[in-house]
């Protein structure tokens, strides 16, 4: 019950945060130089065409009226329409957000599956060759620019060795999944189409690897540091003295105690991935929310910018809450 009350309190605290975000984004979007109506109307638009956009998007009304309309719409789940495409922002988010979430989930899974064992291995074999290898890979992972890494992976794995597709979520002519969740792998799973799952997974590998490269490196390093720290504790010596095998000591006792740091790093990586996957989405033509937001920012398209910012704000708050709750799972001393 304590945990539930804590979670509810934290969730409620998201509301003023989101409200604050809406105010800041609304004002910032209108403070930047440039006339969005002129931009949307086009190069050769006559003044009366520009007026049409100004009226349609209430840009001719006082700021407080615009803000009230914006908030009123948002409360009802209406994020307005994009000035440039005429599409409802809600529809755009519904098609782009699942792509980003699926990619983020795959990246974080990859980061955990590679980063945690590498970190443990590195700590257990400290200053020996497995440690040196893991540290070199970790350093390389954080040092490579994502853009360059993406192009190299495409060149080697997709073209030279022809192992994986170059980009996209799916082969162009393949009859895609019926859109239920927007997660292609999940949608294929739901209808039991294993071949579809396989194809969708293959398309996920390269972008997930690129997006997760930094996280793999960070998780490896933080896990190593934490495990090294825990390995020196008294209870580890006691466990060894009691005759537990090394795999039980490390896997069951050390890792659980060392996981708090890793968990924090996962939270940081997740928030970065949710909002900052523009480059990866661009190179791999992954139709995600990062690219959508980037394009909207460049075009001063207010409605999508506001919706994106609020959405990312909410997601970051939820991720932080989730991580906080998980702390208690791994370390009962941190119960809220």
């Amino acid at each position: 019950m304590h945990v539930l009350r804590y979670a509810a309190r934290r969730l409620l605290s998201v509301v003023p945060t989101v409200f604050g975000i809406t105010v800041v984004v609304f004002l910032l979007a209108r403070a930047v130089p440039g006339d969005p109506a002129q931009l949307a109307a086009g190069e050769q638009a006559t003044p009366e065409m520009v007026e049409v956009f100004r009226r349609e998007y209430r840009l001719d009304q006082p700021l407080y009226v615009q803000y009230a309309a914006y908030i009123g719409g948002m409360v009802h789940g209406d994020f307005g329409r994009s000035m440039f495409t005429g599409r409802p922002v809600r529809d755009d988010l519904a098609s782009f957000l699942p792509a980003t979430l699926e990619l983020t989930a795959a990246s974080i899974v990859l980061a955990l599956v590679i980063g945690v064992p590498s970190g443990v291995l590195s700590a257990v074999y400290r200053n020996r060759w497995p440690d040196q290898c893991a540290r070199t890979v970790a350093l390389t992972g954080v040092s490579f620019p994502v853009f360059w890494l993406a192009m190299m992976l495409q060149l080697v794995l997709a073209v030279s060795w022809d192992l994986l597709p170059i980009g996209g979520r799916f082969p162009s002519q393949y009859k895609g999944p019926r859109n239920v969740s927007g997660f292609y792998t999940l949608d294929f799973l739901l209808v039991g189409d294993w071949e579809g799952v396989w194809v969708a997974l293959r398309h996920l590998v390269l972008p997930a690897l690129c997006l997760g490269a930094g996280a793999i490196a960070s998780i490896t390093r933080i896990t190593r540091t934490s495990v090294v720290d825990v390995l020196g504790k008294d209870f580890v010596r006691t466990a060894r003295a009691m005759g537990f095998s090394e795999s039980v000591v490390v896997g069951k006792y050390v890792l659980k105690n060392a996981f708090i740091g890793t968990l924090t790093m996962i939270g940081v990586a997740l928030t970065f991935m949710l909002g900052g996957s523009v480059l990866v989405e661009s190179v791999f033509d992954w139709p995600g929310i990062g690219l959508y937001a980037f394009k909207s920012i460049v075009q001063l398209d207010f409605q999508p910018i506001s919706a994106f910012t609020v959405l990312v704000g909410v997601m970051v708050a939820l991720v932080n809450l989730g991580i906080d709750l998980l702390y208690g799972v791994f370390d009962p001393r941190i119960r809220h």
Partner: protein
Amino acid sequence: MSFVRVAAAIVVLAVGASLPCLEATALEKKAVLIFAGNQDMPNVDPAVTPMSVYTASALIALYDPLFMYRGDQMLPHLAASATASADGSEWTIKLVANAKFQDGSPVTAEAVKYTFERILRIKKGPAWMWLPIMDEKSLTVVDPHTLRVKLIKPFALFDRTLPNLLVVNPAVVKANDKGDDAQAWLVAHSAGSGPFKINEENWRNGAQYEFIADPSYWKGWPKGGHLDGYIWKIVRESSAQKLALIKGEVHGAQNISPDDVDELRKSAGVRVEQYPGVSPHRIVMHNRHDSKYLADVNVRKALAYAYDYSAVPKIYNGSAEVSKGPVPPALPGFAPGLPLYAYDLDKAKASLAKSPWPNGGFEIDYIYPAGFDIAKNLGAILLAGAAKLNIKVKLTPMVWANVLSMRTKSETMPQSISLWLAPLYGDSDALLYSQWDSDSWGRGNYSFYKNPKVDELLTRARTSLDPKVRADLQAQAQRLIVEDCVDIFTGVEKATYVWRSNVKGYVHTPMRERNPLFAEMWVE
């Protein structure tokens, strides 16, 4: 040891995921061309989306225009003819009798009238072409296949704008009108008579859009072969376009960077096609800027003479030609033999000597789109030339959305900017009137240039139905624009397409240089 097991599992999974899978068996074996376009086409409503952008290729696939640009010609399509009254103020459009919408209903004069009215009512996208010359009283249906258009003011080039009028089926539009002229519905649906339909199952926002051939297309299909459909797949990065072409994941692409084009030339299984472009680049100089420097014709001439034009094609790796004036040669009305500026430092210094700043010693801004290296390098040529005149050029990258707003007013327009502008109908007027007539200040004429003689020549040209007379008037205007050294005409990028070698039937159409006519293409 559990770690070893986990590691082994990872390796097995990684190897497994990398194995070529059976996806090919799931692909439909149809003649579908996959085109790697680097732009999205989020809205296919022909009254909302301008024909100037990449969406035009989708629009002419889904809808038919009254006239169709094909190769260097403008051919009758839904219209059999468009004839003007002696003063160009009244036009009679005769439609072909056999044209049908995709639902089988006939394309009538009433539908053309409805299409015009919808565009004028919505006032978006292509409306700028007709709003200044038409109103709701302009249109009269004479009979089911004849429409009379009475213009507010004479316009001899009205027929040239008709390839941009894509006729909608009024019945379909009205059935989906929820008080917005069906704008919301037509974002991702079509109501036309074109050769292709939307495949809603494979219309994936921001990813790819599939068009399927309409077997009952009223104009019929080429006997030699045609596509069952085509997919506009969004591949944003030039390097990814290149790799997809080499691997054969796509059949064609455009807008590939000059470096990548060079590599593709050496690749097996692909062919590079280049054609003279019609979208010239120029350095727009603000002729009325408060700083006064560029308001002085001698300073502008000095900069134009100091510009090393021979470096322009190198910036594009050879995929561009040096400009031959305000209008590119591929456009009707191009005037050969203009007194253009060539790189000549002596003349540059002599021009500057006639200005109030004979020894230079001032700075001008050059604004270019952030992240666009070609625009930056075209500015760097100016910087290098100007430095020899003791004039400093400050190259400033800027988010282009900001510049688009700044340049609409003389007070906010920077001293100079980098600019490409494509002609939107097939005549020099499309460039000349929008860029150098004082009517177009802030809407193409970003130099804020005004020469009453040029205005008069262009106005007379716009009302002259005789192409020879019109071309002569336009040539005189071009000469004055060059003499006044309004802007620096740098180069014209070639239209570049890269196709897999089994792709046939591409007909390059200058006025649709970024919009392949997929209805005429096929894959062997």
